[in-house]
């Protein structure tokens, strides 16, 4: 079978039972609303095709070229998109639930309001892609090898739903994740430097070893999140919720934690030098071995907190509350 000249021919073939269109040149064809479920288009050239609202679930598009294609509103659930070229493709409002996008090229793709729940995006290149409003619930963006990484450089991720997504080691530096849902997300080793996480939901997220220096975490909800060994230098936590966080061994130098609620927080061995914790609620917080050099704890509530072996000598403790607090020398204040 040679290349097909028109969409009608292709659909006729498909309807007569032929499902294999691999390697064909179908560039520029228009088959909106086509039903091509389960067809094989691997290595086919589908550049600039119009497939709007088509049914392409379980389609094999491995290594196919779909750059600049119109895929808005398509159903690509469980499709094979491994190493598929989707650069500059329009996937606005498409459904890609459980699709396999490993190593796919999604640079500058329009993924506005797309459903990528449970999709596999490992090693995919999403640089400059617009993922605003997209649903990536449970998606896998985890870094496999040092050399291979899901790239999200310059991507738009406002209001994105990444709940429970695996973002281990993902490059999210400078990315706009404001208002995103990252609850239960796995962000270990992720690069979130200078990321905008304003108002993001990070409840129960794992941020261990993540790089967050300079990130905007204003009004973010970090309740029960874990960020062991993370670098949180200079982060702005204004209005954020930090109840029950595990910030053991974190760098929080110069962080803005003014009037923050850090009840039950674990801050063992954390570096809080020059951080602003004035008026913060640190009730029952564990600050064992924490470094509080020149930390501002003015008016902070340290009732029931543990400051055992903490370095407090240069901290500002004016008006701080110390009822039931374990002091650096192990004594408990009544």
């Amino acid at each position, binding site marked *: 079978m040679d290349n097909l000249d028109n969409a009608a021919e292709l659909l006729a073939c498909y309807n007569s039972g032929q499902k294999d269109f691999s390697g064909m040149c179908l560039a520029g064809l228009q088959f909106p*609303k086509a039903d091509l479920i389960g067809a094989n288009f691997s290595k086919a050239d589908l550049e600039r095709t119009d497939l709007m*609202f088509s049914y392409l679930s379980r389609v094999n598009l491995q290594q196919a070229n779909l750059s600049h294609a119109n895929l*808005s*509103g398509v*159903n690509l659930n469980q499709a094979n998109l491994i190493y598929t070229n989707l650069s500059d493709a329009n996937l*606005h*409002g*498409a*459904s890609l*639930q459980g699709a396999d996008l490993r190593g796919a090229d999604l640079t500058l793709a*329009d993924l*506005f*309001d*797309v*459903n990528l*729940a449970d999709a596999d995006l490992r090693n995919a290149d999403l640089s400059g892609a617009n993922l*605003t*409003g997209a*649903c990536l*619930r449970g998606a896998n963006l985890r870094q496999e090898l040092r050399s291979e990484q899901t790239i999200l450089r310059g991507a738009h991720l*406002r*209001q994105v*739903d990444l*709940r429970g997504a695996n973002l281990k080691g993902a490059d999210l530096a400078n990315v706009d994740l404001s208002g995103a*849902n990252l609850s239960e997300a796995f962000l270990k080793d992720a690069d979130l430097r200078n990321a905008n996480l304003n108002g993001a*939901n990070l409840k129960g997220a794992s941020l261990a070893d993540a790089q967050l220096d300079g990130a905007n975490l204003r009004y973010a909800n970090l309740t029960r999140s874990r960020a062991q060994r993370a670098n949180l230098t200079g982060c702005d936590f204004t209005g954020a919720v930090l109840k029950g966080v595990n910030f053991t061994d974190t760098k929080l130098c110069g962080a803005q934690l003014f009037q923050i609620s850090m009840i039950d927080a674990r801050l063992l061995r954390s570096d809080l030098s020059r951080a602003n914790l004035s008026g913060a609620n640190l009730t029952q917080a564990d600050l064992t071995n924490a470094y509080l050099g020149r930390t501002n704890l003015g008016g902070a509530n340290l009732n029931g907190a543990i400051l055992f072996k903490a370095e407090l000598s240069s901290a500002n403790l004016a008006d701080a509350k110390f009822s039931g607090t374990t002091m650096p020398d192990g004594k408990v204040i009544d």
Partner: protein
Amino acid sequence: MEGAQPSLQNQQRVLAAIVVTDAVGFSAQMSADEERALTIINRDLKQIASLCNVFKGQVLKSTGDGLLMCFFSAAQAVACALNIQKKLRGDHKRESFDHRIGIHLGDVYINDSDVMGNGVNIAARLESFAAPGEICVSQVVYDVVKSRLELDVTFLGPLNLKNIQESVPAYQLHPIVELDVCDVELTRPFFAEGYEGYTFDSPLEQGLQTLGNHTDHLRIKKLIFGTCQNLWENDTTVLDQFSLQQLIDSMMQRNPSVEHCRASLYRIVATLNHKEVYSDVAEVILQALTPLYIERAAHQLPTEGEQAQQVVDNVAEETTKDRYQQVADELEHDAQVVRIKKVLYCLCHKVWETDIQKIEQADTAILVQQLYQLTPTPNDLKFRLRHLLNHLNRKAKYTKIVNTIFKAFHPLYSAQTELIPMSTPGLPNSNDTDSPETCFGDLPVGIHPDNTVAFSTKASEGPSMGDVAQVKDRADLFELRLDIVKYCNPLRAKILLHSTLYSPFTGSSQEWSLLRSKTLEDFLREVFSYCPSFEDLESKLSIIVHCLEDSDENEPVVAAILSAIKPYYAEPNQGVTSTDRDRTIVPAVTSMRPASYG
């Protein structure tokens, strides 16, 4: 011609209906009495220009004793010309010139200051063929308008016009001058498409006649009443308290367009047993109301008089806010302010709020404003208050409260209807039970208003907190989004919501860019503010789905949206209509999810 209202600002070639007028005997009059001639012509031209404006035309230039105008509809051009002739000839109270008018439809070049092209030349030549006080139109204009307007015409045959190569077949139109037709009637436009006939009867009167004389007039009234009040009423004694005109006015105030009106009507129809019968009734109503909406749309184009009215309106708008505050102040001085606010809150939010803190935090002025907007007439307010009262446990106590509210609201209504003086408002315990303005002393609540003290202390006023289930929090819509996109196509969901919020999606580039500028979440938030109740959304979506292509594809989308969104709505009405025990209005108990959502 692109779009409905193309701009004429820059040089462009457009297909337009060109209207040329010329005053007969102007030069002769000028030589006889220059000043008088100028006064009269200026007045005439001003009048012609204002009519042109009413009919959505544009004055391109003045020729000294006439005007060159341009319309994007031949029907509007002719309707305007007919009105000009009627207006200027029918006015016996003052002198005016006779005018000739010529109309042709053709391509013209328009720029800021001038208009050129064969179309203009033909219109000008046709004008010279018109008899004084009449209109000469080319064949092409006549063909376009003949089916829409009732015309008295004479065929003039093919005319050889100066400097025009081909002969132009033309018609002379004779305006029907009716005596004693008032000015207001004359300036009312009739051009709108789909509106047959060319009569001077007010669309409102026509609509009232059609509906009032209809064999199904009782069902018509019930349905309109139901739509206005959001409550079904079978009792004719209640219905008789409302005139059809009142109800139509109220419905048109709430529904800015025929489409809104349709959605509101069908929302009620969907809840009825005889859906088919009432669907027909709804269509009869819509057919009768369409001309009223057309008329209203036409009147929104300001004429001189209306501009003056607008100034008045603007001033009124500024003072309105103060008026709500005044009402609020008066209510807040009452010792029973909490109960008063409970009632206001309940009528605005359809929830009998028992949390005193919430009640106290609610801004009284805003509640007043909201309730006022829900009840455009005193009768509406009275009906709603009475309905609530009937379902309250402590009727006696609340009869007083309700009377206080009704009395306090009165200044709002009297200001609104300044031109139609109302009878003085009844006092809370007035015995004047026949006056519609009287309050609730006459209501069949079974308890004498004064016999209140014995009750109260033990009876609870609202539902206990345990009965109040929480509606899902609208602050976090990630779950809702997921539920929607899991079961339907995200793009189709957006298109459907877009269509519901704006207008049926046609796929224009403007609509696409709007669709890409907002996320599904943004649309959902707009839906929450646009559709106050789940039922409202349900009916709007089920109507809009039939206005779109691929309704087979979209039906499952509607189902997915509705089942996902339901837990985010409080369940309305339930309390008001279902229970006569202690509690009045029970907010939604919809934590249950559809089975498929496991």
